[in-house]
């Protein structure tokens, strides 16, 4: 890999290529990764439509190529760059800002940090697998299918990397068109309804977000004189309380719909069930993450005052989502629907971790995103393979599959357990970190405390909490807690989601894979083909790798998380002061937990640097 990037650096020295290189003189990895699929699309246009195998192979090669290019981001990404705390945000490999539409203040600006890095990698990693998985499943309009998938990738990667609010929005919306087409053309029976619902839900939210974006844009412009959608520029906004409440609502609505958070999730099961396998995989694994990514990237840091007010409610919705999704998954008759509801549940963990604003919570939230992408993507692939053989997704139509397809059963089991959160597999790390972060949170307070703990012993005089309806729970001397209890209660309820998660997944697995073979069709099911084996292996390997060696992933994002929390700490402290100063508002308490980074644990440089260093030492 190192040699590979050396070749690229040598190429970048060419004057011709140097022109397209970014301002730092390096290779524009980000643009290359984002727009590389276009090359594949271009080639696909010129291939006759009846050459199915050629079309598939070209698309696969294009996706693999993009993955190789994205490795360039991974190896040159330097986690240590963000360690300098106190600064707002550090982005690397930035490209731009180039003027795009100067009249409206829109620029082309991309950059990567610890948050976006892994989402890009997740997308580029899953895309070739997804395309490979369609070889057997899609036989009609293969050309269009491949073009749509590659186009989708451009939007997904672009949205994560964009640092201009408007550019982000463009990519965010572009994603809808290919996904709409994928669900609508290659989907199941109710595909048209599902596609429409998906599109309209997302569009409603995002258009309101657009208005909010424009509002901030002009607000900042009027204040500072610089009219620009640039991320750094938007963050200079000084918004009043009421403004923040409305703007946060607009942003959050768009992201909640995408996540989807509990009451906005209704489009998801339908879309998942009706979408073709590849569509479901990308939808669950990557597209939903745009919502959570948007929350931490834009909605949280932009509106600290509003966040302070909304935080406990968001956490509440997340917890409700966790349990609700899990309970619904428990009763599903349809395997795909079960996996879809499990997504609602898992993303609840993600949001709960993110909103806790603790290092563990954020890391956990990010890790859930990745782990859920891998595991749920894998589950959908497995369901797809079952469906191709049995032409049914009903649990009752299966039973005893393990006897017929032993290898498949093993792989499916690993993926299923990863999703259920078995220690040693990737799901566990994320959920555990999220729950731990949430339990430590000092941010989720409703203002009026449900419980208050005080030292044991005779109470002298009247405490404030005796005048309100708050229950006072006496504790041992030296232990006292107020709002943290709220967070703790959330965590307790959320933890039941893990139990339920194990229950619905393992029960489903039992009903599908074990027991007697009741149906003749099951008996006749083909064994796993080498291609399908190849599709599942990377997922299984990644699930195990992420489970046993999470440091590889965490130490790349930790510095960014630290920086993020430091920034949020300042903003939230100000917000708390403001809320205390304003008599018309309730006094709100909230605190961001910032912990020192452990220098030995953290990576000191990019993978490439480390490799060089090691070579020199030798």
């Amino acid at each position: 890999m190192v040699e590979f990037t050396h070749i690229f650096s040598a190429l970048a020295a060419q004057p011709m290529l140097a022109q397209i290189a970014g301002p730092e003189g390096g290779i524009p990895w980000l643009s290359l990764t984002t727009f590389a699929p276009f090359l594949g699309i271009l080639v696909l246009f010129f291939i006759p439509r009846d050459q199915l195998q050629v079309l598939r192979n070209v698309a696969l090669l294009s996706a693999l190529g993009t993955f190789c290019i994205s490795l360039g981001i991974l190896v040159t990404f330097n986690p240590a760059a963000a360690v300098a705390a106190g600064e707002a945000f550090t982005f690397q490999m930035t490209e731009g800002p180039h003027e795009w539409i100067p009249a409206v203040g829109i620029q082309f600006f991309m950059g990567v940090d610890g948050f976006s890095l892994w989402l890009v990698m997740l997308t580029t990693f899953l895309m070739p697998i997804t395309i490979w998985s369609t070889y057997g499943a899609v036989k009609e309009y293969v050309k269009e299918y491949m073009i749509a998938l590659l186009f989708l990738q451009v939007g997904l990667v672009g949205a994560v990397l964009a640092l201009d609010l408007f550019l982000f929005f463009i990519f965010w919306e572009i994603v809808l068109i290919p996904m709409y087409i994928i669900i609508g053309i290659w989907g199941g029976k109710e595909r048209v309804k599902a596609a429409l619902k998906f599109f309209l839900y997302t569009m409603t939210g995002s258009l309101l977000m657009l208005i909010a974006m424009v509002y901030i844009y002009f607000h900042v412009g009027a204040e500072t004189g610089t009219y620009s959608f640039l991320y750094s520029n938007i963050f200079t906004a000084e918004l009043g309380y009421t403004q923040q409440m409305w703007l946060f609502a607009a942003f959050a609505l768009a992201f909640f719909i995408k996540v989807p958070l509990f009451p906005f999730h209704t489009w998801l099961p339908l879309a998942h069930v009706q979408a073709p396998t590849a569509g479901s995989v990308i939808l669950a694994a990557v597209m939903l993450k745009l919502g959570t990514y948007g929350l931490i990237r834009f909605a949280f840091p932009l509106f600290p005052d509003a966040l302070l007010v909304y935080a406990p409610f968001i956490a509440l919705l997340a917890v409700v989502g966790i349990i609700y999704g899990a309970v619904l998954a428990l009763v599903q008759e349809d395997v795909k629907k079960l996996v879809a509801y499990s997504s609602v549940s898992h993303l609840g963990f993600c949001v709960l971790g993110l909103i806790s604003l603790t290092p563990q919570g954020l890391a956990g939230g990010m890790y859930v995103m990745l782990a859920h992408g891998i595991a749920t993507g894998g589950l959908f692939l497995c369901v797809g393979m079952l469906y191709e053989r049995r032409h049914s997704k009903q649990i009752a139509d299966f039973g005893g599959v393990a006897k017929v397809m032993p290898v498949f059963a093993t792989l499916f089991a690993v993926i299923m357990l990863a999703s259920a959160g078995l220690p040693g597999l990737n799901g566990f790390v994320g959920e555990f970190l999220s729950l731990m972060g949430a339990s430590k949170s000092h941010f989720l307070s409703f203002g009026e405390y449900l419980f208050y703990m005080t030292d044991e012993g005779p109470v002298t005089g009247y405490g404030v909490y005796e005048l309100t309806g708050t229950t006072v729970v006496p504790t041992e001397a030296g232990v006292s807690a107020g709002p943290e209890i709220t967070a703790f209660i959330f965590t307790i309820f959320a933890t039941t989601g893990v139990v339920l998660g194990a229950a619905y997944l393992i029960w489903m697995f039992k009903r599908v894979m074990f027991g007697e073979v009741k149906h003749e069709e099951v008996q006749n099911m083909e064994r796993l083909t080498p291609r399908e084996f190849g599709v599942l292996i990377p997922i299984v390997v990644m699930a195990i790798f992420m489970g046993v060696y999470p440091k590889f992933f965490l130490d790349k994002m930790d510095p960014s998380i630290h920086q993020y929390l430091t920034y949020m700490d300042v903003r939230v402290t100000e917000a708390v002061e403001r809320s205390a100063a304003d008599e018309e508002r309730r006094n709100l308490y909230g605190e961001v937990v910032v912990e020192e980074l452990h220098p030995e644990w953290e990576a000191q440089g990019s993978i490439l640097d480390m490799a060089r260093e090691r070579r020199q030492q030798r």
Partner: protein
Amino acid sequence: MQLLSSYNMLSLLTPPQGAEFVALIPGAILTLIALLFIIVDVFHRKGSSRDYQAYFAAIGLGLTAASCWYLWGSGLERPAFFGMLYFDRFSLFFSGLVSISGALAVLCSPAVLRSNQMERGEYYLLVLFSVIGMIFMVAAADLLTLFIAFEVMSIPLYVVAAFLRKDERSAEAGMKYFVLGAFSAAIMLYGIALIYGATGTTNLEYIAQNLEFLADGGTEHGGYGLVMVGVLLIFSGFAFKAAAVPFHLWAPDVYTGSPTPAVGFMATAVKAVAFAALVRVFVIAFPAEVLRGGFFGWGWIDVAYVLAIASMVLGNLVAVTQTSVKRMLAYYGIAHAGYLLVGFVAANSHPSFFLHNDAILFSLIAYTFALVGTFGVLSYFGRRGQAVETYEDLGSLGLKYPKMGLIMSICVLSLAGVPPTAGFLGKFYIFRTGVDVGLQTGEMALIVMVIVGVLTSVVGAYYYLKVLVYMYMKPAIREIEPLHNPGTKWATMICAILTIYIGLFPAKAIDICREAVMDMQGVPAAVQATIDRGEIELERRMEQWE
């Protein structure tokens, strides 16, 4: 107000200066082409194909558009011909836009006419004449020129609407359009008469001048009662042409009955011209605060506000229930008039936001290409006079004819306002204007209007997606064959490419819109101050970039 000093009696007696004739060039080119066309048509051999006539007309219209481009830098400071015609970038912009719209529509036409057994040269001639009317209407500096140009534009279109005379619905369309159109023209003329009665002039700048005298002389509302009625009548005339609620009733029937490619032209060019004249007349002639009103002082801004919301809501909601694509597009046309009115209200509610009118211009560019492209694709399919009309007719056309399907998808997505198409930016630009002005003035009414616009455009996305649903996801019900017509292919392809291009790289188009708005002549002093400030700002920004 420079008119007063520059046009004294003596100057009226002298013939117009040679330089003033430049104002006629685009119109004159097209008139000559049209006259030439008559001669060419005389020598047509009976029974042979008339495709060349379409190309001839399209080239003529293209020449006109090119002349607008060429004359971009050579506007006149003062209205030519004793205050009859403005010749500025604003008028050049619209002349160019309607010419392009006409050219694209004409290119799509021959096969449709042939399949309806109405292949006649007159069709192209009527389109040419109509464009001539439009070119003079956007340049009018006097209500009389305006009205004459208005009629020159309208009457050929009534005939075009009824052109497929073997089709009952076309006749119905023509009749409806004519009766209602004539009625609205009469109302507008009555408004002009009232204004003349109150101010003693029909020249736009003189009207503004005299209105000031009126305000100075009288008590609070002085002589404004009469003027206000006149203003509203003129407004309703424009609203009729723009198909804004409640003057929209003709639109669905006319759109359904008229020859499909011509609808693309009628829907875009007429709307563009109506808005050009609306901006021109109201900004120049009726800037008085009492008339303008503004958020429930019930002047013309408030009227436009109500119309904007009504059009957006009604247009979008009724479009959902349509089964015919043409009717749906008609109702979208109504909704789009609402969106443009949003821009109009925001940009003209105070003189200091005048430059925001560029949103209207940009939105019109996006709308023109997308809509002409959509109607072009619709006219490409069908046989023996049976045009593709309902959603069901579109069944799986996108998969059978991938190129046309792609073009249609691009155009439809642009109309729905989905990035990265021009239509998205057009809508975005309009809403952005509303938010900007609302934020600066603190008028929540504007923000409310924008939110209504955004929510209704989600409804719009629903019925446009339905087009895609039928094109790609539903089986074909009726056997539809394409009319082999290279012109349609080219025209629609141009539309689609431009839609995407402007969506991705709109900087140039926005610049053109800005220049057009900045160069508008004859505006009152307050607006002129805004323009000057804008120019300084622009220069400063240019320096910054360098």
